């Protein structure tokens, strides 16, 4: 079943087109990652999908419900952690979780159990009695994300939930999310942090200037856009090998720990074969050979750069 289905969504603010005709479909039980540079339109898309703002045009179906006709029915079934912080300054951490549960009409017994569970899961036990006004920004973010798990939902939207979290809190949150997905939750997740998307997401869409420029699984994205591979060959002795490698292109030699030959090219395999041949015929031992996998980050940068270039050349 499709949890999110959006067709030709447009949204502008004055003369800025923040979302420029995008289609999104997310299957239930999946984690969908939404990546893009600042100002790409991620938050706007999320506000559209969560019925916070209406689209200029286009259709949105969330959990089978027409979002423009029945926005309240949609909101009752989803959870949303906005990019913008939100908190009740005068309430303590535990009270704000408890009250949030009350706002969602969760019975008091369940509320108490969940508060305890979440305070532990999000490492908030030590500050449970502190007021939201008196805790750090990262702690507040954790409270905000934890709070959303006070109620039941079929679909959760997270707009850069890990912004401001330290590495261990971040990992803790990602693992908590993974656990929830195993229990059947579907997640729409925006981030700038590529490793995060890679670690978490089943499918990734990259958005730039309001348009989706790539959608696929992280592996497929790498296959499609990540043909440029980096291969490192280390040989023990300090060797001047440039002479031997005449005619081979797209490599680099450095001499920090022994001699390292780095190949960076779309057809690095062929170059590797040539270099190996040369090394063998010169009886040079290879100490280490490693393929540096293309990171999603590189793909992201390439894809966004290409899309900017093509929109400039097409006169936009």
């Amino acid at each position, binding site marked *: 079943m499709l949890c999110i289905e959006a067709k030709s969504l447009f949204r502008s603010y004055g003369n800025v087109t923040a979302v420029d005709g995008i289609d999104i479909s997310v299957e239930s039980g999946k984690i969908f990652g939404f990546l893009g540079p600042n100002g790409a339109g991620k938050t706007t898309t999320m506000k559209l999908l*969560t019925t916070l703002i209406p689209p200029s045009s286009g259709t949105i179906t969330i959990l089978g419900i027409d979002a423009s006709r029945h926005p*309240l029915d949609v*909101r009752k079934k989803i959870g*949303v952690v906005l990019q913008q912080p939100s*908190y009740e300054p005068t309430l303590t951490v535990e009270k704000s979780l408890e*009250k949030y549960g*009350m706002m969602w*009409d969760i019975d008091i017994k369940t509320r108490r159990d969940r508060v305890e569970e979440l305070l532990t899961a999000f490492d908030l036990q030590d500050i449970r009695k502190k007021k939201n006004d008196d805790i750090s920004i990262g702690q507040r973010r954790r409270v905000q994300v934890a709070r959303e798990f006070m109620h039941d939902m079929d679909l959760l939207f997270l707009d850069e939930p890990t912004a401001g979290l330290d590495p261990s809190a971040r990992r803790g949150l990602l693992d908590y999310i993974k656990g929830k997905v195993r229990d059947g939750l579907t997640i729409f997740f925006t981030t700038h942090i590529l490793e995060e998307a890679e670690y978490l997401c089943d499918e990734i869409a990259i958005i730039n200037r309001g348009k989706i420029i790539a959608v696929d699984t992280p592996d497929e994205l790498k296959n499609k856009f990540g043909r440029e591979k980096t291969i490192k060959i280390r040989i023990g002795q300090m060797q001047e090998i440039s002479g031997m490698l005449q005619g081979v292109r797209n490599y680099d030699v450095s001499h920090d720990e022994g001699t390292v030959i780095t190949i960076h090219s779309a057809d690095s395999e062929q170059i590797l074969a040539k270099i190996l041949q040369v090394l063998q015929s010169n009886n040079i031992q290879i100490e280490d050979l490693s393929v540096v996998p293309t990171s999603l980050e590189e793909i992201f940068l390439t894809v966004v750069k290409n899309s900017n270039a093509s929109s400039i050349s097409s006169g936009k």
Partner: protein
Amino acid sequence: MHPVFRLVNRNLTISLNMGFVIWQVIFPIIYIFVAGFAYTALIHSVPFGSKSLNYPAFIASGMIGFNIMNSTLISGIIIWNDRRHGMFEQILVGPFTRAQYILSNVYTIGIIGLVSAGLITAIGYPIFFKSVEFNVLTIPLVVFASMTGAILFGSIASIISTRLKSSEGFNVVINTAFLFFAFVSTAFYPAQGAPPILATAFYLNPLTYLVDVVRVGIFGNFTGTVGYEMIILTVLAVIFFGIATKLLSRLEI
């Protein structure tokens, strides 16, 4: 529980703190007991229709209206804080509609207004009980004035909270406005005998109407003028409530 009541529950939880209670209870007590009795040396009695009231009784009854007005600042503060701390968006992306959010604020104002009125009536009662003329007509008058006044001033505070961006601005504007309402009114002194310009200014101020209706509710002496005052109070409450609702329902996200 109905969504509106869940929001009211939340509103009351976030607003009822020590500072607010001090504001709502201690200040009126100081006015009634300190100012009220201190001024008796200067003011022996205050004419009230065919009656004459002692000053503590006069000011204690004035404090009821004053307190209703102050308590409704809450609605402005709630909206203001919700916008500033992101809860406005968070609520609207939850299982609530804007209409329910607005309605919950109205109920919150109503509840706090009535409780404040009740509280000050209880505190002031020993002081004005000699002149009290409660009957079937008067008690509903006090309740009517409390509710209409609460909605009127709650709407004014809400309007200010939706119009301003910086937090200093909000505090300055709201305190100035409410200071004007408080002191240019019949809450502390009667219009009869005041210089004509001031007396006119009193009647450009909705708190005057609120206080006058409350006083009639407590001391009796219902006249045609009070009838007009009730109408004006109602009309103003409807107009300001309309404006507040409109602004709130258009508030950008």
